[in-house]
């Protein structure tokens, strides 16, 4: 078997085992909960193994390594063949590894977390299905296949957010997530068919004819219609899809509500993988975005706005998972910002780093809630550090990685790279300053959460009696904590191996680069900002303070501003008041239109028909019938007279007729 063939065998093997597991689990009886978890974990481990193989191959492949395998999905006729394809290159190979690895850890964690749920088999079925769709999304070499998987991960997200469907809030959150992301998906859909029309194909790479290759891109960037090139329009439409999936403003409203789902789902789907799919889409289609400066600017500004708004709102949240959700929104904004300002490698690295530490934080939050009786309010926790030491240690690492504590955490370096890219953006300094502000806020809200949850005294009965979680839950935490540190070695300015892998080229080890004049001032500045954020949090929430349980000291300091932030800037309420209400009323209007206007026209026609028939009826009876009756009377009188005249001659007549007929027949026969 050739090397390429083995590569594609491995590539196909990445999404297939979870898919097969999902199919098996779909038909598995609900009582077999343990075997179900085992099947899902084994399938995921296979996917991880295959991903590792593929990554090794990509790294060995060196500069600009890319392999594609295209095949026909269906054919319509002479004109239309619809192909799909698989692809592996340095953009998706690391993400594949991350998704299958985080997936595996979350699956293991779920065995403990969901083991007692009567529908655990269904849970693992959905989770495996999600994993398959997500991995399929990553290996797609066709926007169509990517879109198909994109929708399928959306379905998995819908099913898993609403997994506890008996809870009305969960069911509503699931629907909201599906509908809001679908608004974005329609943008993506339109962008896709537009791209199809312009390029005649949806394959990303196809030996020079793919949509991300120069021949097609040149054509897209050339023609202008309505003030923008096709490339701009298509890129913006794709970005609408990406923004919906990745919780960018103004589509972010679904993501915090999605926390109604079980915690492993929040960790895997709504923190590490699916929500990053939008970022991945932009990174995948980056050549197309590069063809349009306008589109990139939009991406940068939307990303910046999201990074800042998410961080602001996170400051005033009380639910442990909701804080993390807004943090995810904010971090996804960082990634988009990075893509917009021309730092796709930094975005990709932040995507990977964020996946590990955010999954860690969510699983940690699950462990915390699990330990103290499903409590979710951070203001009713406290002092958990002593009672859950392992969770505390892991959570601390995740928090420091997210907050950007210097040097020993991957999050620090990825954020650094993003700030660096933003600083170098020639178009505007705005996103850079916004990113700095968001960095400060991130350090603040994460320290706040940390202090409220793990330090000080217990502020509720449940928190006082908290216990450490079982080993099946803590083991993934430890591994994820390690992964929040380790990847840093491949992406510091001292050894930019990751950049070399994605961009091509050779990474040189040089510690001195850290002290280069374009690097160290920013490093120092962001360290100071993080320190300021942590210090401020310590000042407000220091463990020795004495406040009533359930009262946030920030409330007193921020006053009305705190309320606005706690209410999430009234975003949901605004939508309820405008979009949702408009939909409801236009629905009623359409129903009324049906009933009164269209239905009314039919009823009018029917009434007119009835009126005419009544008139005709009257005419018939009074006019025609009466005349007919008169005529008939006359006829009858005449008939009686005739009858009298011909009485007794009937027999004669019949006889004559009969004889005549027989004669005629004989005549005809003879002739």
């Amino acid at each position: 078997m050739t090397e390429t063939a083995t590569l594609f065998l491995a590539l196909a093997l990445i999404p297939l085992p979870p898919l097969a597991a999902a199919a098996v689990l779909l038909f598995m009886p609900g009582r077999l909960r343990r075997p179900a978890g085992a099947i899902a974990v084994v399938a995921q481990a296979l996917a991880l193994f295959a991903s590792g193989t593929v990554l090794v191959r990509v790294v060995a492949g060196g500069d600009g390594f890319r392999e594609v395998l295209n095949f026909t999905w269906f054919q319509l006729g002479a004109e239309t063949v619809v192909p799909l394809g698989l692809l592996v290159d340095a953009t998706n190979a690391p993400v594949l590894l991350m998704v299958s690895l985080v997936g595996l850890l979350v699956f293991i964690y779920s065995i403990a977390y969901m083991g007692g749920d009567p529908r655990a088999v269904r849970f693992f079925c959905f989770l495996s299905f999600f994993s398959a769709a997500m991995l399929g999304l990553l290996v797609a070499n066709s926007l169509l296949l990517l879109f198909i998987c994109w929708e399928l991960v959306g379905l998995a997200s819908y099913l898993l957010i609403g997994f506890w469907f008996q809870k009305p809030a969960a069911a509503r959150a699931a629907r909201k997530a599906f509908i809001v992301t679908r608004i974005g998906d329609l943008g993506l859909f339109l962008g896709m068919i537009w791209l199809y029309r312009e390029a005649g194909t949806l394959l990303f790479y196809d030996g020079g004819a793919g949509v991300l290759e120069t021949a097609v891109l040149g054509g897209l960037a050339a023609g202008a219609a309505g003030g923008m090139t096709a490339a701009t329009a298509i890129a913006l439409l794709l970005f609408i899809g990406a923004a919906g999936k990745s919780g960018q403003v103004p589509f972010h409203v679904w993501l915090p509500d999605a926390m109604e789902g079980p915690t492993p789902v929040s960790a895997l789907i709504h923190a590490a993988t699916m929500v990053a799919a939008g970022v991945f889409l932009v990174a995948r289609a980056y050549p197309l975005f590069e063809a349009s400066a306008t589109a990139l600017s939009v991406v940068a500004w939307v990303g910046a706005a999201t990074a800042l708004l998410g961080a602001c709102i996170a400051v005033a949240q009380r639910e442990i998972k909701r804080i993390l959700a807004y943090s995810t929104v904010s971090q996804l904004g960082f990634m988009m910002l990075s893509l917009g300002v021309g730092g796709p490698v930094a975005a990709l690295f932040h995507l990977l780093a964020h996946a590990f530490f955010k999954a860690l934080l969510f699983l940690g939050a699950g462990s915390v809630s699990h330990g103290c009786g499903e409590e979710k309010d951070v203001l009713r926790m406290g002092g958990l550090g002593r009672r859950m030491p392992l969770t505390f240690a892991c959570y601390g690492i995740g928090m420091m990685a997210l907050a950007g504590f210097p040097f020993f955490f991957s999050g620090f370096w990825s954020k650094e790279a993003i700030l660096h890219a933003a600083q170098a953006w020639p178009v505007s300094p705005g996103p850079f300053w916004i990113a700095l502000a968001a960095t400060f806020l991130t350090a603040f809200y994460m320290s706040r959460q940390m202090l409220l949850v793990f330090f000080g005294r217990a502020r509720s009965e449940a928190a006082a009696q908290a216990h450490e979680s079982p080993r099946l839950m803590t083991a993934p935490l430890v591994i994820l904590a390690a992964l929040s540190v380790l990847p840093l070695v491949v992406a510091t300015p001292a050894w930019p191996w990751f950049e070399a892998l994605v961009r091509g080229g050779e990474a040189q080890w040089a510690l001195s680069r850290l002290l280069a004049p374009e690097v160290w001032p920013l490093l120092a500045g962001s360290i100071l900002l993080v320190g300021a954020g942590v210090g401020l949090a310590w000042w407000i929430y220091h463990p020795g303070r004495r406040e009533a349980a359930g009262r946030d000291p920030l409330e007193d300091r921020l006053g009305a501003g705190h309320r606005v932030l706690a209410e999430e800037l009234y975003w949901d309420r605004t939508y309820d008041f405008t979009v949702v209400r408009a939909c409801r009323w236009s629905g009623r209007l359409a129903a009324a239109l049906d009933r009164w206007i269209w239905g009314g026209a039919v009823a009018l026609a029917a009434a007119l028909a009835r009126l005419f028939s009544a008139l005709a009826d009257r005419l018939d009876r009074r006019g025609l019938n009466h005349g007919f009756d008169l005529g008939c009377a006359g006829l009858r009188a005449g008939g009686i007279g005739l009858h009298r005249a011909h009485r007794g001659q009937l027999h004669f007549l019949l006889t004559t007729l009969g004889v005549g007929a027989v004669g005629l027949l004989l005549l005809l026969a003879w002739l």
Partner: protein
Amino acid sequence: MDPLLPLIIALPLLASVVLALAPAGLARRIALGFAFAGLALALAAVLRYDTAVGGLQFVFRYDWIPALGAEWYFGADGLGVLLVLLAGLLGPFALWMTPPELPLPRLFFALMSLLQAAALGVFLSLNFVVWFLFWELALIPAFFLIKLWGGDRAGPAAYQFFLYTMTGSIAMLLAFLALFRATGSFDFIDLAEAARAGELMPSLAVGAPVAAGLVFAGVFLGLAVKVPVVPFHTWLPDTYAEAPAGVSMILTGLLSKMGLYGMLRILLPLFPELMQAWMAPLLVLALASILLSALAALAQTDLKRILAYSSINHLGYCLLGLFAVGAAAGPAAGLAAGREAALAGVCFQMFSHGVTAATLFAFVAVIEARSGGLRGLHDFGGLRAAAPMLCGLMGVALFASIGLPGLSGFVGEFLIFKGAFGLVGGWVALALPGLLLTAGFLLRVLLRVFSGPLPERWQAFPDLTRREGLMLFPIVGLMVVLGCFPGLLLRLFHSGFALLP
């Protein structure tokens, strides 16, 4: 002369005769036997259809009334075969889902078979007189089925259905009489060839230039009522809601396809100039069908009415594809690709909608049978807890209806939008909100009926029986199979469509 097509039409006719004479206790079995035999014949047609050659196959001609131009003339291209398959599937499906205790079973099943025969006749006839005979024949059993076995308000609904569609038919009949006067032919093929040669319009316009437009409007009205196109749709929600389960399934699955089939077979080939000239109003009607019906569906609370509006909405995408093809006649290569995709999409969507919508009506019937006739959106809640299999399978059907990739609904919509976007661009973008609204009102069903706490009264809500599952499981499986391997059906259109360039 291939006897296959006359056999396909004659089989359900024979069934209705046999049913009229058979003992009542055996009626259901006899009807099902005939229906499954019909499915076998349909499969035979699909397998025997030579996709490499394409065009009309299995042609059967036999003179009937030469003076009137009437001829038993049957033939099927990919579209015809596809619809025969749809009818073959839905026939046994609808009978299977009919509740067991039924007044007058012989008459019911005989009329159902007659309805099936009429629909098949429409899909296979190539002569207007015969075609129109079947077209009108469909009305009679449908009327009695709705009136006699329908819900509380079935009487008015049946009359409205009958009179409304009859009005459309009369308009169409007059239009065809005018066509016959002008050309001396009722033969769809001859008429299409005359149209392609550019002779049809001039010969129609002799005397009065407005005549061509009137003829077109007449044919359009007849077909539009049947589909239906907004605003000629007001008969539909009442009719679907009042009709008994099996009949709603056939109405939405098959009878709505008669109108679309007529548009593909008559409007597009015979009136290309007028389709192009009237593209703007036609596309507006398509958009109205997509958007207004989806919005109206949002305001409904009766499950059957939601599905009824959903049906208009989904067929609206077919109209969009059809009218886009009509709007963009011309030899340019890009247009040819667009037409090909849009037409294939329309056909795939017809099939997919036929299966999906019929399945959803079947599920509502299943729910209704368990709830003692309740089918309001707010009558239920949390049914997933009590009946996971029912809700799971119905959920798949709902997502197929939403157009989720991997299920059959996506392929048709993708091809229609892809094709139509290449032909009429911006119009297509206006239809996109429809896709969102579709998801909106269907997810509302999932939310209200399946989710939330299970009310006390439905604690013992039975899940699917083995008998129901035996039919519903393969049908839902078909949605998955077609969503993943659409080539299974699309291969029927490899060589294009009969009568269309």
